[in-house]
């Protein structure tokens, strides 16, 4: 997988423009249930001065932008602390989910996000309230980053009635309308046209909001993506397509699926501003999403971002991941995105080791509480079976 490593991010294709300060501090409500402080997220403000001239029309080669080194330290302390807390919550939550799967408390398919945390945290910090999110089945971290209660997500994994989808969706179908998280989708690539459609509605209603649509590297080979990319670009829909390139679709490496292995270049076929992003650095994610958001809100249409990332665990809980080497996994662990944030916080004196450990302890308690909550919640009763199938309340189901 070595070649999915970021090559000094030197290849931004059609990308243009630079981050502008995003609107501030959209605190989000978390489902009414047991909000945690990570939910009270803050929108960071890049301190870096914005060079007016850098905001070019889409299509301009923005090598200037792309060649900048990881802009560590250019965000304020609050931003780093928010990232740290949000990403560590994802990590602790997923570690626990993995354990609970082992104990058969969680069943079905369960895909963990461990290793990919920056992909969500950096986007949430760069976007604003009202923007919509959609992704595939590897979907626990997106709502966590948006402020959905861990209780509601854990309860969903436990198939309990208090889960965000009332125990009907499970791990692959977390939805939370209160934070604009439009799901977890199980058909690879299926969410890509949906993301474009969500953006279509925002444009139609002239809201100024956008949709960020995540997908795995496996999804970029689906025809649906190519059809959607074409129309999204043709109609300048306010959508940010993001491929979380973790190197593998199940056991199949990116290299084995196509001659086109620099995935961001796929967008270029549609003249879509596209760029690779080192997604082991949350700052890079934030900046790239901010640039894409600015284009979307300026009416310039979609962007395609390739987040170079890695999943430390198997594809799902049943995958022994024999198709890759220990060394490869280790290599990525060495570049861990949370460790990067921790390092910056400590070296910049934004917090002490003890303070970070205290946050970790707090998050572990939050996760433990979510397990407790899930354990104690009831399963949905049989009557629930016929609810939520049609909006029409007296729909005449066939019943024997």
């Amino acid at each position, binding site marked *: 997988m070595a070649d999915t490593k970021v090559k000094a991010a030197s290849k931004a294709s059609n990308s243009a423009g630079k981050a502008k300060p995003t609107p501030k501090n959209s605190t989000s409500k978390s489902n009414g249930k047991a909000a945690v402080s990570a939910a009270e997220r803050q929108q960071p403000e890049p301190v870096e001065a914005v060079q007016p001239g850098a905001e070019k029309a889409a299509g301009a080669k923005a090598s200037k932008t792309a060649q900048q080194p990881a802009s560590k330290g250019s965000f304020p302390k609050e931003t780093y602390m928010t990232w740290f807390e949000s990403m560590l919550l994802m990590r602790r939550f997923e570690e626990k989910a993995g354990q609970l799967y082992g104990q058969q408390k969680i*069943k*079905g398919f369960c895909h963990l996000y461990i290793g990919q945390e920056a992909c969500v945290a950096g986007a949430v910090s760069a976007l604003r309230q009202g923007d919509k999110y959609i992704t595939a089945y590897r979907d626990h971290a997106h709502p966590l980053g948006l402020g959905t209660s861990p209780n509601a997500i854990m309860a969903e994994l436990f198939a309990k009635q208090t889960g965000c*989808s009332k*125990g009907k*969706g499970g791990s692959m179908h977390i939805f939370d309308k209160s934070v604009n998280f439009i799901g977890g989708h199980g058909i690879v690539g299926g969410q890509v046209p949906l993301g474009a459609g969500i953006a279509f509605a925002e444009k139609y209603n002239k809201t100024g909001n956008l949709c960020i649509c995540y997908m795995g590297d496996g999804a970029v080979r*689906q025809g649906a993506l190519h059809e959607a990319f074409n129309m999204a670009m043709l109609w300048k829909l306010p959508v940010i397509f993001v491929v979380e390139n973790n190197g593998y679709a199940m056991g199949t490496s990116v290299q084995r699926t196509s001659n086109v292995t620099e995935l961001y270049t796929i967008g270029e076929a549609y003249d879509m501003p596209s760029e690779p992003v080192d997604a082991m650095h949350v700052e890079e994610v934030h900046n790239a999403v901010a640039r894409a958001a600015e284009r979307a809100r300026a009416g310039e249409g979609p962007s395609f971002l390739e987040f170079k990332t890695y999943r430390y665990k198997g594809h799902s809980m049943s995958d022994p991941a024999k198709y890759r080497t220990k060394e490869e996994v280790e290599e990525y662990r060495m570049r861990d995105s949370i460790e990067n944030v921790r390092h910056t916080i400590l070296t910049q004196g934004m917090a002490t080791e003890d303070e970070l450990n205290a946050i970790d302890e707090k998050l572990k308690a939050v996760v433990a509480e979510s397990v407790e909550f899930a354990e104690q919640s009831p399963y949905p009763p049989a009557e629930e079976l016929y609810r939520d199938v049609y909006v029409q309340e007296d729909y005449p*189901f066939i*019943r024997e």
Partner: protein
Amino acid sequence: MRTIQFREALREAMSEEMRRDPSVFLMGEEVAEYNGAYKVSQGMLDEFGAERVIDTPIAELGFAGIGVGAATNGLRPIIEFMTFNFSLVAIDQVINAAAKMYSMSGGQYSCPIVFRGPTGNAGMLSSQHSQNFENWYANTPGLKVVVPSTPYDAKGLLKSAIRDPDPVIFMESELMYGDKGEVPEEEYTLPLDKANVVREGKSVTIVSFGKMMKVALAAADELAKEGIEAEVIDLRSVRPIDYATLVESVKKTNRMVVVEEAWPLASISSELAYNVQRYAFDYLDAPVHRITNADVPLPYAPTLIEAALPNVARTVKAVKEVLYRK
């Protein structure tokens, strides 16, 4: 006789046919290097090489269509869908191309292809991963649709499907791959148009196919304890359907219950009920009953799955209803 797993029976069928006929190849997601998402094709890459055991990107519409094109041009592809839920991405090529090639070319181009993979629920996977499409495909003229229930049937039917000159949809189940059953060492094939009377009886006919056969047979065991002798018929194929065997049975038992995993509307059970009333009306002593999935997307929670899926208790109850017994 030796006992092997369902997945091994499928693997033997494919491997034997690939040894016999060089135009047969296997294509699908994770079939080669990963040895199959459910290990059905384990070892086949080693034996047949990457030219005949072919990994694809996640691109169902594309590789299904490539299979149809190859079949039209003389090869005999086996296209594996990781599950039939994902075949919906590919269904245009199956229905609009494979099923119609022979007809629209006026008999010039046939399409000898097998599309295979698991169908139906496999536990707590929620609605997008828990669907039955047997009746969807069975609705389409030009296709044959086979749904085996045992390792023995799986092997014999898959070999026939691969040799068949027409496109065959072959539906398995994740929940059956580990099932063990007797399979002879010697070569055999089974016809694609014959139902199997698995258990004889005279009180009632229980009809099913695929993994619901287990429910049907377990219900028959229960009923036997109360002196009710159920005849249990495994359709094996749902297109074509062996109505002769069914009607024969109903003439003897005068009652029929169908157990099917799919949703009720326009299902195989609807179709069976129609034909049995049409051709054995005078022999029926009670309306045909059926047990199907609830008329809803299958949710994730175990309580809801339990309430939705066919099971032994519901089947026993339906049988008693057609027997007018408490």
